[in-house]
């Protein structure tokens, strides 16, 4: 009897709440790498996403946004599986996906099979995603890996005086793109890249890779991320490594700089470039850092948002602002929304962002150096801010096309 009446009450309250909040929902599917090597990156990406919702709210006119999250593991097939599940089972209308380079290329190709839906890239940064055969319904509000390296090659050559470097990177599209950007600028300035080592994503034991690092170079560039980066640093410290280091955008990032243990101290003084710098004094950036810090208790976040949090924040922000411009109108295959997304310029925390004709971001880049704040926490300090970085890195598009697509051996080390 009691059970029955309780059930009745529960049921009626459910119905009541249903009528009270009956409003149209816009369903958005989000993917992040919540498994595997890049787990920490995915988690902080989601924190950035949540921060954006806290700041901007979920209301679009009289409609409300509903987000459904799916997990991936940085492999392209896991991303397509997650996106397909979100579309077919959860019936999402808009995708905020994916996080990692190879995933981005796969999701972009998949986007073409659903031209009626809208795909907003969450954080992935392979060049190919928007440069080769871009999908008309795929929008990217973060720069690609090569854009994120702008300024580093020149700074290393001119200010630091490095002449010969070697690179170690994870063997997939995003890191190819990063090394592409670095090599182009460093070799263009007159430097030499003598050796490029590639390791599989998810490598745990770097001891042999470390032993194979050349001795006759001025610095070693590390294009690693997540667990791989932490493992590398740990074993590098154990092997007594002392070379100058240079870092890629997810290597010199809070995901690594605030890892537990002392191995990260090898990074103090390392120069890097990325779409953000932890200590930038711009009020917009400081406001974002504060919003991020206020959104989560101290032990559930990094001291300062990672690049992934910033990217997820930026893409969520672009989506919400564009949806508000069209008042949540998704009729006619979301034509109005796509139009608004292509034109919108956002005041992202890491500088103004607008899209080019391939729907790829043009934004601001930062050259940084890792510093210790005196209390044992590491941050990336701004060395140089470079506005208006486009996908062809300032090259003439025809010249840029001749360089070829980023791969293990492209570009060659020469002046283009």
């Amino acid at each position: 009897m009691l059970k029955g009446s309780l059930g009745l009450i529960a049921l009626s309250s459910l119905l009541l709440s249903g009528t009270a909040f009956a409003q149209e929902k816009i369903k958005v599917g989000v993917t992040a790498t919540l498994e595997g090597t890049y787990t920490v990156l995915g988690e902080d990406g989601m924190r950035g996403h949540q921060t954006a919702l806290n700041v901007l709210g979920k209301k679009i006119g009289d409609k409300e946004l509903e987000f459904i999250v799916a997990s991936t593991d940085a492999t392209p097939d896991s991303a397509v599986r997650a996106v397909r599940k979100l579309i077919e089972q959860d019936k999402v209308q808009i995708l905020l996906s994916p996080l990692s380079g190879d995933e981005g290329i796969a999701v972009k190709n998949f986007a073409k099979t659903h031209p009626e839906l809208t795909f907003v890239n969450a954080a992935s940064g392979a060049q190919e995603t928007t440069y080769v055969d871009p999908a008309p319904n795929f929008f990217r509000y973060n720069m690609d890996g090569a854009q994120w390296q702008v300024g580093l090659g020149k700074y290393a050559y001119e200010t630091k005086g490095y002449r010969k470097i070697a690179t170690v990177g994870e063997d997939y599209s995003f890191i190819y793109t990063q090394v592409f950007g670095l090599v182009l600028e460093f070799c263009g300035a007159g430097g030499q890249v003598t050796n490029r080592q590639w390791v599989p994503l998810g490598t745990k034991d770097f001891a042999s890779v470390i032993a194979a690092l050349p001795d006759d170079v001025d610095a070693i560039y590390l294009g690693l991320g997540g667990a791989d980066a932490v493992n590398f640093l740990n074993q590098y410290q154990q092997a007594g490594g002392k070379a100058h280091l240079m870092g890629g955008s997810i290597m010199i990032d809070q995901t690594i700089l605030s890892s537990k243990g002392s191995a990260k101290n090898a990074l103090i003084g390392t120069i890097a470039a990325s779409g953000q710098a932890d200590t930038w004094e711009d009020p917009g950036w400081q406001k974002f850092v504060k919003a991020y810090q206020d959104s989560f208790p101290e032990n559930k976040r990094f001291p300062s948002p990672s690049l992934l949090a910033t990217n997820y924040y930026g893409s969520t922000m672009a989506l919400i602002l564009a949806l508000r411009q069209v008042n949540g109108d998704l009729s006619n295959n979301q034509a109005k929304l796509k139009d608004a997304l292509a034109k919108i310029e956002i005041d992202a925390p890491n500088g103004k962002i607008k899209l080019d004709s391939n729907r790829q971001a043009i934004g601001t880049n930062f050259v940084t150096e890792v510093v210790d704040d005196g209390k044992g926490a590491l941050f990336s300090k701004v060395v140089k801010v470079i506005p208006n970085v486009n996908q062809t890195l300032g090259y003439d598009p025809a010249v840029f096309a001749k360089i070829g697509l980023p791969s293990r051996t492209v570009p060659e080390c020469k002046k283009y």
Partner: protein
Amino acid sequence: MARFIERHPAWALIVIIAVAVLAWLVFAIWPPGLEAAIGRKRVFLNAVLNGITLGGLYFLVASGFTLIFGLMRNVNLAHGSLYLFGGYIGYAVSTWTGSWILSFIVAFIAVALVGVILQLAVFRRMEGQDLRQTMVTIGLSIVFADLMLWVFGGDFYQVQTPSWLIGPIQLPLLTAIKSSGEPVYLQYPLVRLVIFAASVVIGIAMWLALNRTRIGMIVRAGVDDRDILAATGVRIQLVFVLVFALGAGLAGIAGVVGGTFQSLSPGEDTRFLLASLVVVIVGGMGSIPGAALGAVIIGLAEQLGSVYIPTYAIVVTFLIMVLVLAVRPQGLLARR
């Protein structure tokens, strides 16, 4: 040894030549032609040593796995979870007390207790039902993985290496001679050597315990014929619990080792489960020397692969497994 040479003279010759070539590669100064062809000697020596030390870690995980299988015919697919759990315990203890050694002891005891509970609460109820045990352990490994994700989050943890173990030492192995005639010796991370030595000691202790003690005799008898052993009045359930506790405890120790020279994070559990499966398949299910041989082969294949054929490094391990399954499906050192 002499009998082997008599029976397989051709094989013996090949083995002797291979050992001689390896010894020459390790001890001689490489001529410039060879260095040009396959790279510097330092890289080769490092890869070999790394492979052997990584094999030490794999042995620690796989020996517990194979011991449990050998006695109880029980494929414990939650073994990887025990590894990761041990690592987390080790991390917690070493940050709390600052003692690296203590973290091993606590991890061993804590994970062994989990093993005892598993044996009493789960495996005892489904003795001899392979499929059911397999499904239950897969289920348990998923539950454990989520529980650990809940408690420890997705961060990377590293067990702090004590300061006296950080950094490289010089080994009496020549890598090159400078133009000034000064010899260059190999620098190698000390912590890996210590860990390798520890796993050798553990391996020998296990072998001695199995072959020289009364308990070991009972365990070996149990491996051969469980029912007859039980019929002779041995309290077989108690032996099962002990062996399970030891196997689980070893996985726990391996977790601390793995957390020291690699890192701990969600996903490591399945990686080490897979590694120990491959190791015991190559070495032979249920055989401790087999686990040692398998671990060294897989460790060497991974490390040499990552240096000399980086693109296909991942495949090499599985190729070895396929090859062993095709040629000697019971494993290299299996008894039956």
